């Protein structure tokens, strides 16, 4: 069997700072989580529960204080080795896209870093724009000329252009309108079917999360209190906190 794309084992992250009397603060405590290829794991919980910290660990932006992390069965190594294999889509595409770069250029940038030839890059950009449901003419536009949903599609195209094996969606649909949200959620599902990437879908919106995810992990105070198939979150999840989250749907 193929090893999971991301496997965290007993990961603890401690932030050292003065604000708690100079002692450490555990943002994550003994977290174990794995994301397989072609699988989306939803991560829900309130702010301060460690969702974003966990996302940063999965992206290799933050070293676990203790515990181990494997990428496709191997030790994570350094970020340079993982170029083009990891990606992220953030909540506000206007912050993720340079407002002065044409969208085509923004989408192309990760390919420049991985050393793809110019002709191949152009073909690849057109192809990926088409896959996210945008006309290739969008490559010539500036982010300011697009609607919120279109900008998020550009951000997703940029994240996908190197065929990464793992993508973190950090509140990727939270800023979008209801019907645009549905479009983007469907797009994520379709693209995953086609590309088979593993994904971590971080959100505080359990309704959107269970729609897009195969499995859902619920975080509370730096710990995962429940980890189960998404179907369970349409009925009765086990942990009382999960049930409280669900009551708000």
């Amino acid at each position, binding site marked *: 069997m193929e090893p999971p794309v991301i496997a965290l084992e007993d990961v603890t992250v401690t932030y050292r700072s003065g604000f708690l009397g100079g002692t450490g603060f555990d943002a994550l405590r003994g977290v174990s989580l794995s994301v397989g290829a072609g699988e989306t794991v939803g991560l829900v919980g309130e702010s301060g529960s460690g969702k974003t910290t966990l996302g940063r660990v999965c992206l290799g932006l933050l070293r676990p204080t203790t515990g181990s992390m494997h990428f496709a069965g191997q030790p994570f190594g350094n970020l340079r080795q993982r170029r083009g294999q990891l990606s992220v889509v953030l909540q506000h595409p206007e912050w993720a896209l340079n407002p002065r770069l044409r969208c085509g250029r923004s989408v192309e940038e990760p390919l420049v870093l991985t050393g793809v030839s110019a002709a191949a890059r152009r073909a690849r950009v057109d192809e990926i724009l088409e896959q996210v449901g945008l006309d290739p003419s969008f490559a010539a536009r500036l982010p300011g000329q697009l609607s919120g949903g279109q900008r998020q599609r550009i951000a997703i195209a940029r994240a996908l252009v190197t065929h990464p094996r793992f993508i973190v969606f950090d509140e990727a649909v939270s800023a979008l309108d209801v019907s645009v949200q549905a479009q983007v959620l469907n797009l994520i599902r379709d693209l995953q079917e086609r590309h088979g990437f593993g994904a971590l879908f971080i959100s505080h919106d359990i*309704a959107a999360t*269970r729609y897009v995810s195969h499995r859902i992990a619920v975080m509370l105070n730096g710990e995962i209190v429940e980890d189960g198939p998404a179907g369970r979150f349409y009925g009765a999840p086990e942990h009382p906190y999960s049930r409280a989250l669900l009551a708000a749907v």
Partner: protein
Amino acid sequence: MTAMTAPLVDIADLVIEYDTGTRQVRAIDGAALQVFEDETLAIVGESGSGKTTLGMAAGRLLPPEARVLGGRIHVADVDVSDADDDALRRLRHDKLGFVFQNPTTALDPTMRIGRQVALAMGGRPAPEAIAELLSRAELNEPQRILRAFPHELSGGMAQRVVIAMAIARSPQLLIADEPTASLDASIREKVMATLGRLRAESGASLVILSHDLRMIARHADRVAVMYGGRIVELGAVGQVMQAPAHPYTRALLAAAAGNERPGERLRPIPGTPPILESRCEACAYAPRCAFRETRCETERPEPRAFAGREVVCHRAEAVIAADQSPRQEAR
């Protein structure tokens, strides 16, 4: 609902355009709405539907490039579009309360909370009175918060401060523009509950502008669905949500995550919302509508009473009939 007394807010045939420099954009295209005393009314719609423009127009809080081209707005017996500065100031200060989307931009970052709240209360309130107001908005440790600056508060606490300021003068009308959109999901419900409780205690009316259908279903009495600068469906929340008579309401409900069954696919609304440049002489929703017929593209639908609510649609009968089994059809 007190349909016999004069409505608190009476908006009729309102037309508002924005002057963008290169062209006119019509944000409100003949909207009519009444808000009665002691009720919670929600205005829903996508961005660009005109809900914020409508809400802000009630206090004449529109940016300078907005122009009211027609219609009237009466709030608590004051003609808002015609009032002089003095009357308008009294209206805003004593009868209206606003809660904005982002509490951190609504509060002055250079002023301690206590002083800002005192300004909203008017006069020279005692610290105890300010603390008492803050605790009414369910803020624990009001003494500590009085001395704090806005950046020292969490988003939820800051929004409660804004709510406390909005209710400081016991207004008759509270207008909340996406009051929980910038807050965490886990505290949204609590903040909405606070807002609803304060409204009920004071007997004021609350107008919520939002695109969160689920939140509205729990907190509003009536709902007005906006599209293309008009109110396309208006009625009791239960009725409208259970059996929508306007195809846009129906499509919004089908697109929202949370109502689907496992494995079911959400159905986004095809196309994009219109940007109107002048009066729309057809149904603004027709290009995206699954129920359209030729008449929808040539004849502007007018509001009419149908199935216990008001709807702006030629095809309402067909929509409500089709809605008996929306879930089966979704498969």
